[in-house]
């Protein structure tokens, strides 16, 4: 019994921190070298480096290189395209791959659009397939608290979004909303899971354009049903109160716009008077004291 405890303890202590990736064919012996490159026929230099540090913490660290790099790994065409990368993930993650191809990102992906997000853009620490980490790890780009920022890598870029006619500052307006505030003020603890972020309303792998009728946020009826997923009993009137990632304006919920105007005038007037009486009284007190 004491021996068992000793051995168990030794395994725990000595084993801790030892999470090196499974590398049955010693690929990292060469590919762990950051200066390893090759030059393709067109003369382009391509890095063949795989960061051991990242691959050791990756979700797939115990899956051997050859699981993805099938056949003769050295005969493979490099670099992979975004589509061929997604195909590779889809060999195991069949369902996610299938759904992803139906999403707004996947549809564009199949048309060869290099802008769109695919697997590694949301799941990898660096964009490299070797640095994909699990969603529940707090550093993961797809961890609840980080999702907004991950989407904002593209959707926070006005120029890129302008190409697709998306003018709403979706990230800023989300961060101003109660959902965004809760995410920002929340910790990295698991309680974050119940707070809404981009994917809770727009979908995850099946994400659709907001103007696509099949999107969960297209039209008041389906928007209300989406709200209702968290806000039990929410109806169309509840959904109507959503500013739609835009500032209030006379066209967009005028009541809110005029409320903002009213309170701005009220604040400036009242605080202006307050500042005048405080500053003028303060100066008067100082003058009185000085005269004494």
């Amino acid at each position, binding site marked *: 019994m004491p021996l068992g405890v000793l051995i168990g303890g030794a395994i725990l202590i000595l084993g801790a921190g030892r999470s090196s990736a499974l590398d049955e064919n010693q690929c990292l012996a060469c590919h762990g070298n950051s200066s390893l490159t090759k030059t393709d026929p067109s003369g382009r230099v391509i890095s063949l480096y795989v960061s051991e540090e990242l691959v050791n913490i990756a979700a797939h660290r115990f899956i051997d290189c050859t699981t993805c790099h099938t056949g003769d790994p050295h005969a493979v065409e490099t670099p992979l395209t975004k589509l061929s990368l997604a195909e590779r993930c889809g060999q195991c993650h069949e369902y996610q791959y299938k759904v992803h191809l139906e999403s707004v990102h996947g549809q564009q992906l199949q048309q060869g659009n290099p802008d769109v997000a695919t697997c590694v853009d949301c799941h990898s620490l660096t964009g490299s397939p070797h640095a994909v980490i699990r969603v529940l790890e707090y550093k993961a780009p797809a961890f609840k608290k980080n999702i907004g920022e991950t989407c904002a890598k593209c959707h926070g870029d006005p120029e890129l979004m302008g190409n697709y006619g998306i003018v709403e500052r979706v990230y800023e307006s989300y961060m101003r909303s109660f959902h965004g505030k809760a995410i920002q003020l929340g910790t990295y603890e698991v309680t974050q899971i119940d707070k809404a972020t981009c994917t809770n309303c727009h979908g995850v792998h099946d994400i659709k354009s907001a103007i696509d009728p099949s999107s969960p946020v297209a039209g008041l009826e389906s928007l209300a049903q989406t709200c209702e997923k968290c*806000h039990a009993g929410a109806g*169309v009137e509840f959904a109507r*109160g959503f500013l739609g990632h835009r500032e209030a304006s006379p066209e967009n919920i005028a009541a809110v716009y005029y409320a903002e105007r009213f309170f701005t005038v009220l604040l400036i007037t*009242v605080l202006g008077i307050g500042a005048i009486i405080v500053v003028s009284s303060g100066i008067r007190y100082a003058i*009185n004291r000085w005269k004494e």
Partner: protein
Amino acid sequence: MTTQVGTAALEKVRAEYLNRFDIHQRIQHIGLALSFIVLVLSGLPLKFPAAGISQWWVAFWGGVEVTRAAHRIGAYVMVLVSVYHVVYLLYTVIILKRPFPIRMIPSRKDIVDFYQDLAYSFGLRKEKAVYDRYNWREKFDYWAIFWGVPVMAGSGFILMYPVFVTQFLPGWIVPAALVAHSDEAMLALTWIFVVHMFFSHLAPGVFPMNTSIFSGKVSRERYRREHTLEYERLTAENTGDTQGGEKKEQKK
């Protein structure tokens, strides 16, 4: 011997102070102040969620769930205090048959006083305005709360129960309530921390704080200086009066 000296000293002190606020008014002020502080501390991070200090502060409390609960408790206390005040007011007027506290109602004199005080500050007048029981700043504070608490409680209720509220009211009421709640809170906060802080804590003669709302008592000298008209009325009617305030009005 010592007892006699002690009693005599106490009587002397009593005579030097006039009652300005009764126990109910003092409790109401403490309740309002404490709930206000809790509401600010638990609500302000929501206004600046991106700031590192907000995130640290919320984590210090134990997360948004905790500040949310604290904010609601603060709100319940503030609403309770406000209800207490209105009930107290009605009770003194209807049951105790005291005269309605008409001196809290803004009047033409307040505008004149405001102008005179401003003129005094700018060196255009030699003397400050002469106040009655409540000066224009005190009236403004009082009525600001009379406006502010319903706005904050109403909008806060809408934000607490948006699904329930939108069963009866249009959807825009929710984002409008957020605007009202947020802006009115900033107004109240800034006013309290600038104007109230200045006149009740920092101004000469009151520094570090005007204790009358906590003790209920004001020294005879200060009463004469700061609420001259009321003081003169009190002393004219009953020289050596130690009751003052609302009780005095009862006798009229």
